[in-house]
């Protein structure tokens, strides 16, 4: 390593979301998510590898390995060979193994016209990863002979990385007042029989954005709110089909990108989840009522002051002197249990919508559509994610459960609303 680099810190701590994801990682849970771009031409693996090699040094937050210290996990720059692009596999978002694959926490795959990027959530959230992916796609297209200018969300790979891109935005914006959410009720888990190891059932639905927007508008909601409501209804129907003696509430974890409220250029995690919830034990809800509830809940709870108070609590948690003194081997099981109780049990599913993927106009004709997949949950139930590009909205259900009832109810609801849906899946039976 050149001498002048020694001045820079050669390690840095994880942000408070990263701390959690690093501690709870295991073989049956994957904090990996995937973004894919389906190009208009077959992918050239050699050009993609060249693009990866050029882009990685520009993004020091992704060019890291995770190390276990005595008290916390930490990140350090990874100078190992790679990461190498690989032919794609049938079971995406495999759990990360810190000591394998030269310690890389990002993976690159190609399959026919599809380029996929998988990222460990401790490094970055969807917004940061999409900036990285957009730049990678631009460099890849340049390698294949297309002239793509800088700007429009594409970072200049010849510029040194900006300090702000690496900042821990949670700490920067943490305030003084802490807001602690009370104990949340256990939600309906929406599980089914588990598939054997190395199986992740992925079902994708594609539909026109304009049509979806029109239907969502009819209910007086945004696309995210409308889709969240459809998902909640599908899960409620799953529960009702089992005729439970006492129905449990159905709640979603919806990550909110905080950059819209707290300006930051960080490429690391800067999200917070909100929990819209419907309790069927109180009585039946019409679909319009579900949409209204989700819509108003989102508008009410997504505000600067409350969100700041919530993540201030999280920052205080990792900065707690007493907690810092507990060795990481003891901390991991405690974190794992608290994740199960606080972040898994009160939710029926996760629904994330990173929104529209925008690219410079020169890139647009070369990308056909975008896809997103979330890794397996702690239990055999599907997670839902969506992303739009141009006029194509892509919605993915991914999980290790055998049943496809949730996705069936979800997509057939959209079809009944007059939205044409095309479905693709990696299920073999």
């Amino acid at each position, binding site marked *: 390593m050149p001498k002048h680099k020694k001045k820079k810190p050669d390690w840095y701590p994880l942000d408070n979301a990263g701390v959690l994801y690093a501690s709870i990682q295991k073989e049956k849970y994957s904090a990996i998510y995937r973004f894919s771009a389906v190009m208009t031409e077959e992918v050239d693996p050699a050009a993609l590898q060249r693009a990866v090699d050029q882009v990685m040094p520009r993004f020091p937050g992704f060019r890291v390995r995770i190390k276990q210290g005595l008290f916390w996990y930490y990140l350090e720059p990874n100078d190992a060979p790679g990461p190498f692009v690989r*032919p*794609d*596999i*049938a*079971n995406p978002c*495999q759990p990360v*193994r810190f000591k*394998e694959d030269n310690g890389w926490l990002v993976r690159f795959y190609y*399959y*026919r016209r599809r380029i996929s990027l998988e990222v460990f959530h401790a490094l970055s959230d969807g917004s940061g990863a999409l900036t990285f992916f957009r730049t990678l796609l631009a460099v890849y297209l340049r390698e294949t002979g297309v002239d793509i200018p800088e700007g429009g969300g594409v970072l200049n790979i010849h510029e040194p990385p900006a300090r702000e891109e690496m900042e821990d935005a949670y700490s920067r914006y943490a305030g003084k007042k802490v807001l602690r959410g009370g104990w949340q009720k256990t939600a309906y888990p929406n599980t089914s029989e588990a598939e054997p190891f*190395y*199986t992740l059932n*992925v*079902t994708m*639905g594609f539909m026109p954005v304009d049509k979806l927007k029109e239907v969502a508008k009819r209910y007086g909601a945004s696309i995210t709110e409308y889709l969240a409501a459809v998902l909640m209804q599908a899960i409620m129907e799953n529960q009702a089909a089992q005729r439970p003696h006492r129905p449990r509430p159905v709640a979603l974890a919806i990550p909110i990108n905080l950059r819209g409220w707290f300006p930051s250029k960080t490429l690391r995690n800067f999200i917070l989840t909100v929990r819209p919830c419907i309790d069927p034990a109180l009585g039946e809800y019409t679909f319009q009522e579900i949409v209204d509830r989700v819509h108003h809940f989102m508008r009410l709870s997504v505000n600067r002051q409350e969100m700041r108070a919530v993540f201030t609590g999280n920052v205080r948690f990792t900065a707690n002197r007493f907690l810092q003194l507990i060795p990481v081997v003891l901390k991991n099981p405690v974190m794992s249990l608290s994740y199960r109780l606080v972040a898994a049990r009160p939710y029926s599913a996760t629904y994330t919508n990173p929104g529209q993927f925008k690219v410079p106009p020169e890139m647009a004709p070369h990308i056909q559509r975008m896809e997103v997949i979330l890794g397996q949950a702690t239990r055999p139930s599907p997670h839902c994610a969506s992303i739009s590009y141009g006029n194509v909205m892509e919605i993915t259900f991914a999980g290790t459960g055998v049943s*496809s009832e949730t*996705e*069936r109810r979800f*997509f*057939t609801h959209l*079809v*009944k609303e007059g939205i*044409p*849906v*095309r*479905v*693709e*899946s*990696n*299920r*073999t*039976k």
Partner: protein
Amino acid sequence: MSYCVNCGVELDDTAQSCPLCHTPVLNPNKPVDMWGPKPFPTEKGEVPPVARGELALLISAMLVSVAVCCGVLNLFLRAERAWSLYVIGAAVMLWIWFVPPLLLRRLPVCLRLVLDVLAVALYVFLISLDLGGGNWYWHLALPIILLGGAIVLGLALIFRGGRRSILTTTTLIIGAIGLFLLGVELFVDRFLTGSWQPGWSLIVVTVCVALMIPLVIVRRVPSLREEVRRRFHM
């Protein structure tokens, strides 16, 4: 393009059934594209298995260190007896059992069995050296070991040719046990008295044959075999 008649969603050209409700795709105007590329890869990514070479090295190192330590200790502790030969012999036997199959992936089963039997013979030979029993080793232990090895080898050769029914397998194993014990008594008698007077082994053989007869009958009579299969959920 085909649509699911049940869900109403448009399906991929290669989909044989709807991924949502599993209804088969039957479209006479547009048959399923069986040969076209699937929307997702079909090869699964799995955890790479432990490198066999490394495992072989680890086992070898463990066994060698045990053998060397015991050999050196033998020079100081109860040096009048070569007790370390027991440990060294066991280490050699274990090494022959586990390491060559790890290193040579295509080692034929027969050769592997021959090596394993020879390893057992070598171990017992080392024991006989310590006990000063060359006589019992050559006339009793070695023949029994070779007979056992020959019978296991025979079974391996029979089972190698594809999948056998569980009835045939059980019958053959019971028969092999009977044969082995008959041989054991033969060698014991010849070693002790010089002549063969079959006694206890005949009882064992009778029991084995009595066990085999119903199994052979069930195997031979199709109606009985089906009945057994049905009743035992085989």
